[in-house]
């Protein structure tokens, strides 16, 4: 089962496709939002505006590499790289398909959780290092929000772990041959979904960078490639989240007729679309509502879900 | 019985003190009278002593802490009876001398006074070593309060010094007791703190020596013998008169009692070996204290040093360990108790009237208060050992007994007979004769004081003229003690 994992081809292929996907997502999102809002979106550069991505890339490379004089310089540079690296390394455990992926890790799920919690550092550090009040507030908000939702993000997927009896993501996928876990774990799925949205600070839960209040939150002072890294990091986070949702709840690569890798990519793509749809359709809640919802509703719900799952699993087994 | 009465009285006195300031002293008098009446019973027993199998009578026995074989075990022989009598008598003296001196917090004062007496009586009666230690400590605490609350200017220092000296030394004793018990247990397999059981413990010479030393130090601190005496002048000087009376008259005797009752009988061999050292301590103490007394200008301090000197005699007597010396020690104890108490009382009276204890500030008192001066002279003479008074008998017997044991030391100690007139008469000379330095009117004794001192004079003379009555009471006890030691 481990054969062929993590050789040079895998690494190169996965990395390349991730970058491409993340970059393309910029275009995809803009186009999709435009479609849903009855407008065109980027359509000038290249066919259907596809080359917009390349244009953006070039612009980023040639923009001024500016570090504010009032910033904490080392940390200021470090912050965006953290989100970028953690998100990319998070993909190491994603089971794209049998034989495709970086490693087969027994504690894959925990690894994923660890990586997503690490990413909070980038936001906090960025907010702190910028030396800007908006940034600081944004960073703090981001930290508080991420941290709050992180508590039950782990708990919400423990129902899946109970059903599968392992932290190994590939084994979890295999365990879904009898049926996707979304069915027994619907509540868990909902909680996890909300949690990952909050974790990746996507609209509607993007209060740390809410333009109307905080300009751009923690990355107010960022520009150029460092801003790009935050930007790409966010898309990577969406992709990673979708991949995890697919793996945990939608049977991963499993599916009839088509090759496993394709199934996986398709499902993930749908997940990503859903994220974009969320952005396009939902309003932003107030900050205290966001926090209260997390602590007072989702956390107890996750705990109850866990308990109920445990009881059911145990009683089914006699 | 006796102890309970006193302790109960103490509490009653305290409560009455809260209720009405004047009441406690009456309570104290009543309690002491009852106590004295109770003492008649044992004296009856003494008369029939010949028919009793042992020297002990008046047992009282309750198991206390069975885990360690500790018992609440009281008994009395002639020796302790005499000392208890002395205690009660001096209790009266102390109450009397405090009658007017103690003005504030009377309840608490008499509580402490009576507790102290209770502890002392307990010490004289305890046969269980643990119990003995218990009472030993018990009498110290009230005394500490007496000194520290009602004492004179340096009371805190004196009280703490007194307390720490006695406490540390008594911890040594406790250690020795415990070790003795453990050795006893090794031999017999049972815990026991009983005096009679422990008398038979077989000890290796080395162990015996160390244990003996533990007891010895505790008792000589209390006695006090030479190197450990420094607390005494302070404590005596600073204590209120009643406290001084108890302290000098009774408490010092507990040390002697302990030596006689425990050190020598429990460790006869070790004590025998140690005797020259102890006697040397005694002799040096006698001389040194006499010299020091001569050099004092503070009346109470002077009396305190005479106490040290007399206690040296007792030490010599006990360690000579023969009939005459022991009996001499007993008489000395009693006589000194009476004379020292009287002197302290006089000092207290003088201080109350003159507001000073400096001998140098007195002078010429004879002309002002002749009655008082005469009594003082009497006790000063008693203290220096005028034949016909109690102290003389005691010292004489001690020297006589000791002479057979160690001539040189006895001779040295006898020198004090030369020295003691020096200080006693020196005191009289400076304080009472000579030009009168003050001409204001000084009241003489009032009736209460006359009665008290008269009683003391009577006892002192009686001790001197017919010591045989006392000797008869204590003889069986001494006899049995010597038998024990020789076994």
């Amino acid at each position: 089962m481990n054969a062929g994992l993590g050789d040079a081809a895998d690494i190169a292929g996965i990395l390349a496709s991730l970058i491409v996907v993340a970059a393309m997502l910029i275009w995809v999102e803009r186009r999709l939002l435009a479609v849903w809002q009855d407008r065109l979106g980027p359509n000038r550069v290249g066919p259907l505006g596809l080359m917009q991505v390349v244009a953006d890339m070039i612009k980023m490379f040639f923009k001024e590499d500016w570090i504010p004089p009032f910033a904490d310089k080392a940390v200021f540079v470090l912050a965006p790289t953290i989100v970028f690296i953690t998100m990319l390394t998070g993909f190491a455990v994603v089971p794209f398909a049998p034989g495709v992926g970086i490693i087969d890790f027994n504690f894959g799920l925990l690894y994923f959780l660890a990586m997503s919690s690490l990413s909070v550092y980038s936001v906090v550090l960025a907010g702190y290092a910028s030396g800007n009040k908006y940034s600081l507030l944004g960073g703090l908000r981001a930290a508080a929000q991420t941290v709050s939702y992180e508590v039950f993000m782990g708990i919400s997927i423990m129902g899946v772990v109970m059903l599968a009896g392992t932290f190994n993501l590939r084994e979890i996928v295999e365990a879904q041959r009898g049926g996707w876990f979304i069915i027994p774990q619907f509540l868990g799925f909902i909680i996890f979904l909300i949690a990952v949205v909050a974790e990746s600070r996507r609209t509607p839960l993007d209060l740390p960078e809410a333009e109307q209040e905080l300009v751009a939150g923690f990355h107010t002072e960022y520009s150029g490639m460092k801003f790009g890294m935050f930007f790409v990091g966010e898309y990577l986070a969406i992709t990673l989240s979708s991949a995890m949702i697919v793996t945990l709840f939608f049977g991963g690569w499993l599916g009839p007729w088509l090759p496993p890798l394709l199934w996986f990519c398709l499902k993930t793509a749908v997940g990503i679309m859903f994220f974009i749809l969320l952005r396009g359709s939902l309003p932003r809640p107030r900050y205290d509502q966001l926090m209260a919802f997390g602590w007072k509703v989702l956390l107890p719900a996750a705990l109850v879900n866990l308990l109920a799952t445990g009881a059911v699993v145990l009683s089914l087994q006699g | 019985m006796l102890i309970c009465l006193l302790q109960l009285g103490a509490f009653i006195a305290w409560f009455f003190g809260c209720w009405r300031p004047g009441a406690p002293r009456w309570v104290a008098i009543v309690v002491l009278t009852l106590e004295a009446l109770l003492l008649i019973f044992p004296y009856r027993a003494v008369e029939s002593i010949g028919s009793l199998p042992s020297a002990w009578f008046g047992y009282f026995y309750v198991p206390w802490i069975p885990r360690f074989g500790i018992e609440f075990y009281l008994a009395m022989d002639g020796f302790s009876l005499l000392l208890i009598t002395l205690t009660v008598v001096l209790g009266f003296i102390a109450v009397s001398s405090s009658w007017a001196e103690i003005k504030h917090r009377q309840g608490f004062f008499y509580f402490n006074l009576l507790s102290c007496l209770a502890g002392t009586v307990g010490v004289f009666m305890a046969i269980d070593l643990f119990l003995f230690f218990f009472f030993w400590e018990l009498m110290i605490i009230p005394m500490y309060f007496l000194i520290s609350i009602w004492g004179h200017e340096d009371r805190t220092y004196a009280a703490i010094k007194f307390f720490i000296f006695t406490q540390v030394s008594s911890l040594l004793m406790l250690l020795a007791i415990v070790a003795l018990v453990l050795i006893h247990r090794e031999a017999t397999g049972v815990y026991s703190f009983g005096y009679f059981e422990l008398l038979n413990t077989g000890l290796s010479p080395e162990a015996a020596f160390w244990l003996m030393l533990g007891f010895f130090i505790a008792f000589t601190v209390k006695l006090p013998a030479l190197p450990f005496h420094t607390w005494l002048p302070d404590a005596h000087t600073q204590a209120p008169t009643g406290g001084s009376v108890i302290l000098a008259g009774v408490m010092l005797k507990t040390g002697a009692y302990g030596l006689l009752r425990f050190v020598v009988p429990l460790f006869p061999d070790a004590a025998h070996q140690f005797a020259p050292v102890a006697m040397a301590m005694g002799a040096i103490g006698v001389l040194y204290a006499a010299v020091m007394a001569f050099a004092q200008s503070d009346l109470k301090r002077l009396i305190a040093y005479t106490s040290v000197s007399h206690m040296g005699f007792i030490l010599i007597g006990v360690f000579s360990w023969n009939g005459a010396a022991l009996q001499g020690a007993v008489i000395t104890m009693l006589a000194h108790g009476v004379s020292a108490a009287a002197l302290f009382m006089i000092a207290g009276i003088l201080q109350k009237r003159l507001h000073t204890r400096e001998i140098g500030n007195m002078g010429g008192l004879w002309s002002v208060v002749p009655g008082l001066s005469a009594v003082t002279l009497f006790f000063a003479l008693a203290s220096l050992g005028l034949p016909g008074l109690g102290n003389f008998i005691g010292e004489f017997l001690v020297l006589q007994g000791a002479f057979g044991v160690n001539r040189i030391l006895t001779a040295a100690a006898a020198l004090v007979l030369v020295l003691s007139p020096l200080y006693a008469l020196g005191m009289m000379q400076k304080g009472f004769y000579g030009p009168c330095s003050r001409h204001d009117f000084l009241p003489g004794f009032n009736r209460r004081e006359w009665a008290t001192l008269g009683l003391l004079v009577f006892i002192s003379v009686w001790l001197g003229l017919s010591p045989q009555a006392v000797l008869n009471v204590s003889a069986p006890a001494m006899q049995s003690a010597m038998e024990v030691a020789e076994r």
Partner: protein
Amino acid sequence: MNINQFIALAPLTALAGTAIAVMIGIAAWRNFVLSCAIAAVGIVLSLAALGSVWPGTPVQASPLMLIDVYALFYIALLLSAGLAVLGFCYDYFKDRDGENEELPLLLLTALLGASVLAASTHFASFFIGLELLSISLFVLIGYPLNQAQALEAAIKYLILSGVSSAFLLMGIALIYAQSGELYFRGIEGYIASRDDINAMVFSGVLLVMAGLGFKLSLIPFHLWTPDVYQGAPAPISGFIATVSKGAVFVLLLRYFVSTDSYAYTPLLNVFSVMAALSILGGNLLALLQNNVKRLLAYSSIAHMGYLLVAFIAGGSVSSVLIVEPVAFYLLAYFITTIGAFGVVSVLSSPQAEADDLAFYRGLFWRRPWLAAIFTLMLLSLAGIPLTVGFIGKFYIFTGAADGGLWGLLLAVIVGSGLGLYYYLRIIVVMSMDAETVKTGFTQDWLSNVLLTVLTILLVWLGIYPSLLVNIIQSVSYDGMA
């Protein structure tokens, strides 16, 4: 896990349940009286549960905890102490500003930790109990947030306690690495199977002992004690001095007996040095203090030294005397120390903590009963007859003399002499004439009742200790067989 084991854990369960109940109570209705009442009821329930568990012992309640007579006895002791402290806390805090409702909750968790310690036979439960206790204490010490000293004390205690916990953990890890056992019994087997003492195990044991030394404030590790005692609210200082130290000591004893560490002569030597240092150093430093709480802190260091003497004596005596003196002395120490701090806490007002010696001037005439009680407590600390402290000291003497520890006994004697001095100093100050004006006091009836009970216990056990001795004896025989 069968029903017996479950029942055996009832006292602990009751405590934990009460803690939760208090928490819910606070959430529902903030009321200090209510919190205290629930906590008190819980402790009493737990005590009652102890009584009902008693006949069925010993039960290995879980792999981690052994509920035997030994554990039950000490849990009862700890709980009673906790109850008393709770009472003092009630009076101490009832007139103070701030949210005092959580205080009983924290007391309960601390007690729970202490009880777990008393019953634990495994490093894991040992560690959990210790930390539960310590962490509750951090907050308890710093509870009066508006007082700078309390905060300072809390953070100091937190840091030093944290470091000591780290030492402890490292030590456990080393022992575990070498022996593969976390059970005390298992370690005994490991030690018994070896002739030589492995250097790593030895250093592990030393680290553990250093960690425990911190908690017990034995002398090289005592630096936190005076500051913490001074800064913490008076009842809490009493709590640290008794429950916290007592529980750790109980555990230390069990650990030593069940792993048979007495075979380690070098370890005993280390302990001997620590004991002697604690006795002499604690007493000497106490001489210099003018703050009553600080003074009591140093005196508690010395008392831990005394206790350690009895403990070391166990190494050379293979009789029940290993446990008995410790048990009795601990009990005596508990009664006395809680009483002493209780007096301080009664005297303290929301405006000022009554810890300056000058405050006690003339107390005898201002508040005679309180002063008399305090005097008795101090005399008991000094080990004067008529008080329970004397019997305790006597026990130690017996134990140590039995073990032939003459050098340490000498230290005890010297220490006691020094100790007398500063205890007497307080008494003297109290008996001095006061020129100070009378200050208004609130009549704290609960504290007064508690103090009276403690005093009666102190005198009763001091005069007639037989009953207690019998209990302790049965505990020692059955418990540590």
